């Protein structure tokens, strides 16, 4: 398992190299830092100073190589917007994003799996119909609209929860639900399908015949066998969640990486964008690794090699 993990982690620098080269080129070619960072009143000396600092007088490949050299010694450069090491800027926000994504995942997984199981157990009856319809409805709701709706209902009208910002657990509820709503429908449907297949298996019949209670059969025998596709699916979604929480972060004023990245792209703050991509890549690879390990723990038949 250790070797497996190590081999996976090697992917990080390789993909990062490729991605950062593309990003660097695109960001530099479509916007000039001198225009975005120096006031319209700028003096020639200010332009010269910034040009020298960012090596803007060199050709694009040379600029990238200089940047790469710094990265390899651990220096991602100064953020142009914040005037601080880019990696610090990103790490500050990373905690908030991880918190939000984890909370959303927990809600989505628990609610989704339980709802999916209910659908499978009560197949073609009322609970199945209701939950499936709600799942489709949730999938069609744009997160923007849902977020604002939740704010209006729970924060403005009922005053049960705060409208926005990061703070205690109350602040996490609405944004996590909004983000979870994006995942929930798929988890419900996958769980439903997977459970239906599993419940048809021979060992379920045997378990029932043995006289085990319904919940014992479901939770201790059927569910673990049905979990594989669900775990795999969640692994795939983590990447989308990390990067895609931008809308939720904006609506709920959540200080996460998503908003930072979008703002940095608009500002052509190349060091922050690349540092941000690195951090998100690391999180995605580690999360996928954890998911694979979880899979192999759940299903001893899967060997990691």
């Amino acid at each position, binding site marked *: 398992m250790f070797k497996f993990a190590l081999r996976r982690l090697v992917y990080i620098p390789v993909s990062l190299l490729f991605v950062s080269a593309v990003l660097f080129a695109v960001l530099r070619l*479509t*916007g*000039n830092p*001198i*225009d*975005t960072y*120096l*006031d*319209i*009143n*700028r*003096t020639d*000396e*200010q332009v010269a*100073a*910034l040009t020298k600092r960012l090596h803007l007088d060199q050709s694009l490949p040379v600029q990238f190589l200089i940047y790469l050299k710094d990265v390899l010694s651990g220096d991602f450069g100064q*953020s142009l*917007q*914040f*005037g*601080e090491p880019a990696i610090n*800027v990103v790490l*500050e*926000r990373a905690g908030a994003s991880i918190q939000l994504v984890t909370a959303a995942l927990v809600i989505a997984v628990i609610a989704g799996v339980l709802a999916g199981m209910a659908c499978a157990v009560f197949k073609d009856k009322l609970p199945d119909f209701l939950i499936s319809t709600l799942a489709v409805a949730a999938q069609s709701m744009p997160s923007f609209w849902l977020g*604002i709706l939740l*704010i*209006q209902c729970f*924060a*403005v009208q009922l*005053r049960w929860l*705060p*409208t*926005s*910002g*990061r703070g205690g657990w109350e602040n996490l509820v609405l944004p996590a639900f909004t983000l979870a709503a994006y995942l929930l429908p798929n988890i419900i449907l996958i769980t439903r399908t997977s459970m239906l297949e599993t419940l048809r298996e021979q060992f379920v019949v045997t378990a029932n015949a043995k006289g085990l209670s319904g919940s014992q059969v479901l939770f201790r025998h059927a569910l673990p066998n049905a979990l594989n596709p669900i775990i795999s699916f969640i692994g795939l979604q983590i990447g989308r969640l990390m990067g895609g929480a931008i809308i939720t972060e*904006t*609506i*709920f*004023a959540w*200080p996460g990486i998503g*908003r*930072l990245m979008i703002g940095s792209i*608009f*500002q*052509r703050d190349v060091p922050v964008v690349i540092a941000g991509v690195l951090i998100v890549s690391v999180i995605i690879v580690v999360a996928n690794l954890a998911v694979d390990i979880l899979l192999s723990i759940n299903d001893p038949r899967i060997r990691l090699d």
Partner: protein
Amino acid sequence: MAEQQLDIAANRRVSGRVACSLAVVLGVLIMNAAPAAQQKVLTVGAATFPSSLQTGVASFTSESLILQTYDPLVMRDNEGNFIPALAESWEAKGDTVWRFHLRKGVKWHDGREFTAEDVKFTIDRVIDPQTAYGYLGRIGQVSGATVVDPYTVDISTKAVFPILSKGLADIAIEAKHYYDEVGVEVPKRKPMGTGPFIAVNWIPGDRYELTANKNYWRGAPKVDKLVIRQIPEAATRVAALISGEVQIIEEVPVDVIAEIESSKRAKVISIPTSAAMVLTYDTRRPPFDNPKVREALDYAIDKDTILNEILKGKGEILQGQLLTARTFGHNPNIKARPFDPVKAKRLLKEANFDFSRPVVIMTQSGKYVSDVDISNAVAGMLRNVDIQANVSVVESAVYLKQWSALEMGPIYMVGWYSLNDADFATIWYTEAAKRSVWKNAEYEKLFVEARSTNDQAARDKAYQRMMEIMHAENPSMFLFGIPSVYAASNKVKNFGAAADKILRLDAVSID
């Protein structure tokens, strides 16, 4: 015997429980007996945040936060009038030296005295190219500062610079000893100034927490703590205001004004700013190289309808000139051209305008109030006079890149802030500013005259003539003075909308 023992045990249990309950009740009473004095906390919802608390960044969002902890020598009030701040008075000593007499007894947040050394330090820092101070242009003609005595400082300029005192309103005075102690990086996160609030905590992208400076020279603020939160989504900002989480919000989109007013818990406060939203033509190339064509387009736009429908009546229509009504240099004799699409078509035909040629209006999105909506309305009105107009919305980095190259297409939307002196806005139509493709020799001559004399009456006359030239030549279509729209909870007193978008909160109190 056993029963007695049982009773004793039971009694012990009961008395044990009673004792515990009493202890709990007492504990609660004691904890609540001396409640902390109710702290007044003012929470503000801001739309955008600067990236750091670095001074000199040329944006109003940054300046608004900077001026919570710093003061300039001269300050503006909410209406845009200039009043003394850290400098009590000033006079010209010859053509190129201004002497500033500083306020005595002002203390930095760390307790040390504010003196002329700090002013000299700040001025030197601003004009040093290494600092890359964004607002350098406000005092661009300054060559240095000399300390005369601890409360007097001379600022020298390269040439006559009549607007020095106005430009200084955007320069935050910083402490020499603080930079000596901590270097240049620390103040970007931990500002230390003379201002009404003291910085406590800065979380980029999230919030700025401050506490009142009880020794503030204008009088201690009426609230104990100030929290400025960034809430980028306008609907959430409004929700936070109505639910009571924040007491003041900035950047209220005009379409939610009715919702706020009807909530009965908050009111909308707006003020016209000195910012002029205009559509500038590329006068180098056909069709807009012909001044008759540019004049014709002015008749094609129904500015009253746009003001009432899109801006909901907030702001003002520019009277055929760049400067808003309250700006020094505004020409009261010029009026906006009336809406007359028939005349517009006629003038276009007389000028042999090519109606089959597409005309693109370039604009950013969300940079100015209702910018995209107004651009679309203008394009629609131009189509009503048979011009093939449409709108191209571009991202800010792309816009800035095109702008540097002066390739903005036939028409683009831009806003110029004049901050109550014509010099600040009119400069952008001169050659030296490198932003204008339109050139007019008389305009240039008058501009130089106006900034080379300290005689305000002569300056006024020059600017008014410049406005006449602009009205005749139409380098831009002059649309609107942009409004600055805030909303505040009904519990908030003494809060005023600022024409320059700076939050002035030291006199604000909460019921």
